[in-house]
C-alpha cells in the first residue's frame, strides 16, 4: 500500500514570480501581467506550486483600476463593472452618481448598450478621484480625463492589456515601469513612469 501514500508538502519555500498573470485575481476583464511584487510558494521536495504572496494588494488593485481608467481606449461593459467594483460602489449607487436609471447601467455592464463618452468620462473620473495617489503616478487628473479623446464605439480588434513592473521598498510597492498595450496600437509608460513613481 506504500504506493498509495500521498505526498504532503511540508517544505514550502518562496521564490520571485516572474510574469504573473494577475487578471483572474484582480478580476480584470483584460490581461494584467505583473513582474515583481509577487512571490511564488512551492514545495522544495516535489516542486508543486502552493500559492502566491502579494505585496500591498490594495495598492495593486487600485493601480490596475487607475491604469484602465486613464487609458483612452473605449470601455466595454465588463470594464465598466470592473471599475465600479474597484471603487466599491453598488450598481444603484453608481447609477445615482451618473444620474441614470440603474436598468440603463445594467444594460451597459451587460454589454447590451455602449456607454456614452460623457458617462464614460464620469466613471473614469470617479475612479481617479477615489485613488488620487495612483492617478498622480500616471500623471492624470480630472481635467486630463475630461479632455480625453475617447472613441465613441468599441473597437473589437483592440484589446487593452497591462504589464506592470513592480519593486518593493520598505513595504511600499513602487512601479518601475509599465506598459499599456493593444493589439493594434501600443503606448509605453516607460519614459513617463520611471522618474516619478511613488505609490
Amino acid at each position, binding site marked *: 500500500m506504500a504506493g498509495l501514500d500521498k505526498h504532503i508538502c511540508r517544505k514550502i519555500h518562496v521564490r520571485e514570480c516572474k510574469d504573473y498573470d494577475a487578471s483572474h485575481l484582480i478580476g480584470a476583464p483584460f490581461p494584467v501581467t505583473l513582474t515583481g511584487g509577487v512571490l511564488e510558494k512551492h514545495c522544495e521536495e516535489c516542486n508543486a506550486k502552493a500559492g502566491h504572496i502579494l505585496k500591498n494588494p490594495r495598492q495593486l488593485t487600485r493601480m490596475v483600476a487607475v491604469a484602465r481608467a486613464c487609458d483612452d481606449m473605449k470601455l466595454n461593459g465588463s470594464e465598466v463593472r470592473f471599475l465600479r*467594483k474597484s471603487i466599491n460602489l453598488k450598481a444603484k449607487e453608481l447609477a445615482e452618481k451618473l444620474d441614470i436609471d440603474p436598468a440603463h447601467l445594467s444594460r451597459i455592464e451587460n454589454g447590451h448598450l455602449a456607454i456614452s463618452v460623457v458617462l464614460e468620462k464620469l466613471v473614469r473620473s470617479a475612479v481617479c478621484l477615489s485613488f488620487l495617489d495612483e492617478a498622480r503616478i500616471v500623471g492624470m487628473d480630472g481635467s486630463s480625463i475630461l479632455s480625453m479623446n475617447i472613441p465613441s464605439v468599441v473597437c473589437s480588434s483592440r484589446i487593452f492589456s497591462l504589464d506592470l513592473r513592480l519593486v518593493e521598498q520598505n*513595504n511600499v510597492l513602487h512601479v518601475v515601469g509599465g506598459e499599456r498595450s493593444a493589439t493594434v496600437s501600443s503606448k509605453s509608460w516607460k519614459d513617463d513612469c520611471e522618474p516619478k513613481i511613488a505609490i
Partner: protein
Amino acid sequence: MARENYKAEQLWLNSFFQEIKTLDLSLEAEFEMRRAGVSLAELLDVFASGEVEWADRDYDGCSFVISGRNCDDEEIKIYGGFCSEIEMVSVMQIERVR
C-alpha cells in the same frame, strides 16, 4: 450569539485589515476566487468591513473565519489566519455564499 465572543478580534482584525501589507493566497483560494469570480478588491473589502464568525488566537496572530458582503450584496466567507509579527494575512479558502 457566538459572535459576541469575538468583539476584541473583530475590532483588531478590521483595523489591521484596513491596510494589508502582505497577502498570502493558497492555491485553493486562488482557484476558488477564479471559479467564483471573486476579485482581490472584493476580498480586501470583506476583510476591512466583514464580521468575525470564528477566531482562535495563538501566540503570534490568529486563525479566523470572516464573512462579509461585496458591493453587489453577495456574501463572501474567508477562511484564513494572520501573523502580526510579519503583518501577513493568509487566505486558505474563500467561499461565495449563495
